């Protein structure tokens, strides 16, 4: 308990250092570009694959659940759409990215810590926390919403294919997609995504930055990064849903 309070304190101390103006903007934008590549572009593949299949499965399950002939078939499209926008894309993709990006960030920064590269930055007179972490946070805040919009789109395409495979009419599905569309759901989804992006990158950076010892500890930090990022995503998902939707 005392240890987790200390962790939390250290986390805020680090974040205070992170949130300072970049020393050199040309360098900052260079780092930012690199990070957008690593965090955003390199995640496109996994997001597409997962979203497609989940979209298909959601649709098939809706179809199988609706036995009552009175329930209109276009509801399948509507439910798929809302499930993707509200929960699946932001939360589940968030969890998957916590695994992929979280471990990546934590082991990268952890390695820099144990090989004294962070010390080298500090002694050059550079705010290492800000230099390393800020571009990652901003890159993720830019990339994640785009990934989530991509995920919803691909999920819907998956749903279309999945629906066809069990005999849902494409016209019904598309009618459902357009039916009672609530734009606010998209804003809600983006808000969640931005919060998750911040949580994953900052929590993982924290564990990497505070790695002590040698290579083994880099592995331990990276496991912690994934576990804690995931837990925080679930907790904040609950809080945000409670605050915004109800």
């Amino acid at each position, binding site marked *: 308990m005392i240890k987790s309070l200390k962790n939390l304190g250290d986390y805020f101390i680090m974040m205070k250092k992170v949130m300072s103006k970049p*020393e*050199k903007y*040309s360098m900052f934008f260079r780092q930012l570009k690199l990070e957008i590549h690593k965090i955003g572009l390199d995640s496109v593949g996994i997001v597409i694959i997962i979203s497609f299949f989940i979209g298909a499965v959601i649709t098939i399950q809706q179809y199988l659940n609706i036995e009552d002939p009175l329930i209109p078939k276009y509801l399948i499209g509507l439910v798929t759409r809302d499930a993707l926008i509200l929960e699946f894309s932001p939360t589940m993709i968030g969890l998957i990215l916590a695994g992929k990006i979280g471990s990546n960030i934590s082991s990268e920064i952890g390695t*820099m810590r144990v090989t004294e590269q962070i*010390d080298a930055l500090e*002694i*050059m*007179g550079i705010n290492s926390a800000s230099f390393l972490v800020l571009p990652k946070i901003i890159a993720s805040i830019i990339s994640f919403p785009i990934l989530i919009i991509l995920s919803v789109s691909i999920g819907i395409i998956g749903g279309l294919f999945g629906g066809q495979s069990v005999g849902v009419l494409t016209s019904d599905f598309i009618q459902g997609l357009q039916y009672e569309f609530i734009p606010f759901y998209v804003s809600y989804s983006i808000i969640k995504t931005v919060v998750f992006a911040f949580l994953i990158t900052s929590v993982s950076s924290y564990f990497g930055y505070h790695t002590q010892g040698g290579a083994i500890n880099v592995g331990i930090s990276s496991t912690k990064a994934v576990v804690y990022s995931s837990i925080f995503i679930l907790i904040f998902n609950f809080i945000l849903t409670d605050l915004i939707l109800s």
Partner: protein
Amino acid sequence: MIVVENIYKQFGGNKVLNDVSFTFEQGKTNLIIGESGSGKTTLLKILIGLHELDSGNIIYDGRVFNQMKLKEKRQIRQEIGMLFQGGALFDYMTVEENIMFPLTMFTDQSTEEKLDRVNFCLKRVNLENKNELLPAELSGGMLKRVAIARAISMNPRYLLCDEPNSGLDPKTAILIDNLIKEITEEYNITTIVNTHDMNSVMQIGEKIAFIYEGSIWWEGNKEELINSNNMELNEFVFASELFKRLKKS
């Protein structure tokens, strides 16, 4: 010149430095020697503020470092070149980018000026035309030389080296030692080298501090070191047969 006065430092209950006072002179290669675990790295890291000290003073040419705010400390740090034990090159940057990095961060030089400086520093450490290699592609000796090139790229007033020749073969080790000594004299900087390697001590030791039980147990130059009767120092220096014979002859 760097002066340390009455430095105390403990980690938990482990008292590492107990009342360390010493003057590191300008234009000289000042050596800190002592067994592994005696606190050499800790002292260097305290000097640059990577560890907080418990009490004492660190004075860079009259400027009291430990009383400064972080911003002022960063100013001083830009005058320091540091050579870390493992090199600590940024592993996703090429040799050229590594050396150019401090210049990009702290100067407004054009790319051409920076490249000139990079090539000058690379030439100084005898590593011309290795600009595009990544740290993973370098041998141990090359890695150290690139790290030296990076450390001197900003024309430092102070050069701190933590075990610069650990993990190197004897010939390369002497090369690195000599390089550090030459650079020190050429640019009249204050250099501190941590080492437990007696070869280095005999090669470049002008002013030597022996750390034992957390304090400066003995100080002097290499001739005085050979002729000293200090028991703990002799135990450290003459641990090997070679140096025992050297003493007898």
